[in-house]
């Protein structure tokens, strides 16, 4: 195969031209997106966050076709908004132009969560060491993305910061490597800890507060097609001021907790439940409270080491 072209290789003009004409076709394995847009605000964030993504020149199998454009209707005269079209449909309310990049990110997630029923999908961050995966299921606001960002920046391979895709037949986790979405105080915390981290410009006043996206590490991008085997299942909770506390969790309990985060479990029915049970059966399960990122990074390294010694 010839050398792969990445978004970083495109000049700003070429990128702008592509977005405005036939569209930028890029691969975020296992999916291919096409993006068309004439909103200048999108360019800097897109280059920062997606610079490492492969561009497809050939006519390709496109899973999701997205287009960002100024909103029509009465509103455009007094408050310019942008809206997002997904294969011609408009499933989202228009947003102010400045929020175009977060809107795109949410739309991409929405595309996958509403249609990729071939996977058992869980709200969860997934990271890996080699081919062994750490699954961190948690509801929004529990510090899951911050933890995923910190682990990724200290050497773990990111598979996803919010969507675990379990292939129910193979029992493996499919990577869907995407920029990590950080909110409010997390942005400063991660930026302070990891000065080398590359962020998109922070966008204020979104429904989730201030949002910035973190570029995936080169290590994560290299492995963006390598599936991983479930190995550790940890339910994290950030509590300010507490010290690292890791409590082993019984597998039945862990399975029930995981099922709560597996939002398409009912659709997959029995095979989905069997896959979920198998996955839990393969994992060491814990519930975790932590109050400091340094402790968390060291703590997770210890879990890995302990498992290696134990096996």
């Amino acid at each position, binding site marked *: 195969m010839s050398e792969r072209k990445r978004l970083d290789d495109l000049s700003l003009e070429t990128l702008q031209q592509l977005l405005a004409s036939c569209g930028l076709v890029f691969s975020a394995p296992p999916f291919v997106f096409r993006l068309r847009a004439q909103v200048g605000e999108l360019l800097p964030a897109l280059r920062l966050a997606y610079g490492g993504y492969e561009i497809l020149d050939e006519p*390709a*199998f496109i899973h999701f076709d997205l287009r960002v454009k100024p909103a029509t209707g009465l509103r455009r005269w007094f408050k310019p908004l942008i809206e997002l079209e997904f294969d011609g449909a408009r499933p989202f*309310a228009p947003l102010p132009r400045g929020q175009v990049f977060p809107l795109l990110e949410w739309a991409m997630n929405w595309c996958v969560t509403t249609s990729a029923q071939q996977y058992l999908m869980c709200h969860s961050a997934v990271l890996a060491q080699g081919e062994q995966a750490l699954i961190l299921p948690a509801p929004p606001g529990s510090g899951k993305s911050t933890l995923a960002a910190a682990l990724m920046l200290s050497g773990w391979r990111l598979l996803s910061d919010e969507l675990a895709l379990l292939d129910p037949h193979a029992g493996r986790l499919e990577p869907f490597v995407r920029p990590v979405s950080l909110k409010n105080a997390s942005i400063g915390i991660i930026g302070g800890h990891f000065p080398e981290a590359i962020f998109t410009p922070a966008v204020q006043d979104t429904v989730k507060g201030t949002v910035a996206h973190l570029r995936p590490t080169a290590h994560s991008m290299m492995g963006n097609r390598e599936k991983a085997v479930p190995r550790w299942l940890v339910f994290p909770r950030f509590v300010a001021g507490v010290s690292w506390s890791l409590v082993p969790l019984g597998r039945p309990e862990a399975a029930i907790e995981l099922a709560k985060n597996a939002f398409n479990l009912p659709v997959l029915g029995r095979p989905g439940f069997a896959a979920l049970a198998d996955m839990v059966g393969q994992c060491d399960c814990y519930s975790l409270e932590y109050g400091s990122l340094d402790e968390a990074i060291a703590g997770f390294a210890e879990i890995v080491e302990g498992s290696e010694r134990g096996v």
Partner: protein
Amino acid sequence: MFEHNLLLKALIEPEAARCWSAADWGLAIRQARTANLVAALAVRLQESPISIEIPSLAQPIFSAARQTIAHRNETVLWECRQIALALEPIGVMPILLKGAAYVADGLPLAHHRHFGDIDVMVPRARLGEVETQLMTYGWLTTTSDAYDQRYYRQWMHEVPPLRQIHRGTTLDLHHALTPLTARYRADTTAVFAATRPAGALAGVLVLSDEDQFLHAAVHLFAEGEADAALRNLYDLVELLKSRQAESADFVTRLVARAQIIGLERPLFLAVHFLRRVFQLEGLEKAERDLADACPSLPVLRAMHALYAPLLQGIHPSVRSRGFALAKQTLYLRGHWLRMPLRLLLPHLLRKSWRALRQESETVS
């Protein structure tokens, strides 16, 4: 003009998919997704007389779509059983309509057809008792707006949608197939008299085979659900295929039945468009027999102008310039057929006033 309509082409002639490139497969699936026909496409390709190799990127998408529908069917059967149980004490057997009926009747098209709400019909005289009974079992009305309630109850063939408070499913409760004020009105007494037990689920009724088809036709050609036009026409294709496979004289019976219950015009249009869009054969005689129901030439031309763009589907790659206008016109036509002008004008004015107010509220 529509050489890019891979979906429609493959539904008519699945062999066409043999020369699709990777990009074509992606496009066909996206066209199918906007038309709610992904699983239907998968099944149609499988039926092709010449075997078609489905690329590895498409396979999981097809199996996911079919899995989603299989799950939906299971829950729909369960939900229908709950409705039947709720109505049992008052001695009313629910008559299932549309999607739910296809599932309960075990029709092949139920395995690849998308739908959301459950449609049920009961005798109008029992409506009050039925609503009370359903409310006891957790189906509550979705609108407390007095005008909406009155609009539905005085003029429509259904009450405002009900929602199951525990499971979130939506139930459309009908007492007739067509609005009380409609231009094309099905003879309700005859329709009720012809109902029969469902083939695959005990305790519920379905319409007769002919009435199921006629209901689908009136739905497509009188209610103006523009975005779903292609899916609704494909329903007719599949319904016809299944029923014809069971009995060769189905089309003849269909024509006779349309004349009895008064739905010749929608049936004429269904036959007319099935022949032209899907190139179905064996319908020439039916179209001739229904010639009296054929609209005048200008009206027929207008119907073509309206439906041709809609029946291409709504994906941007096949959306013609006339689409938005056709959709608007069809919306008005749907209302025009539903109620006389003296009721319609105040109703539409009221609706647009409300829409404007809502828009200004979201802006401020």
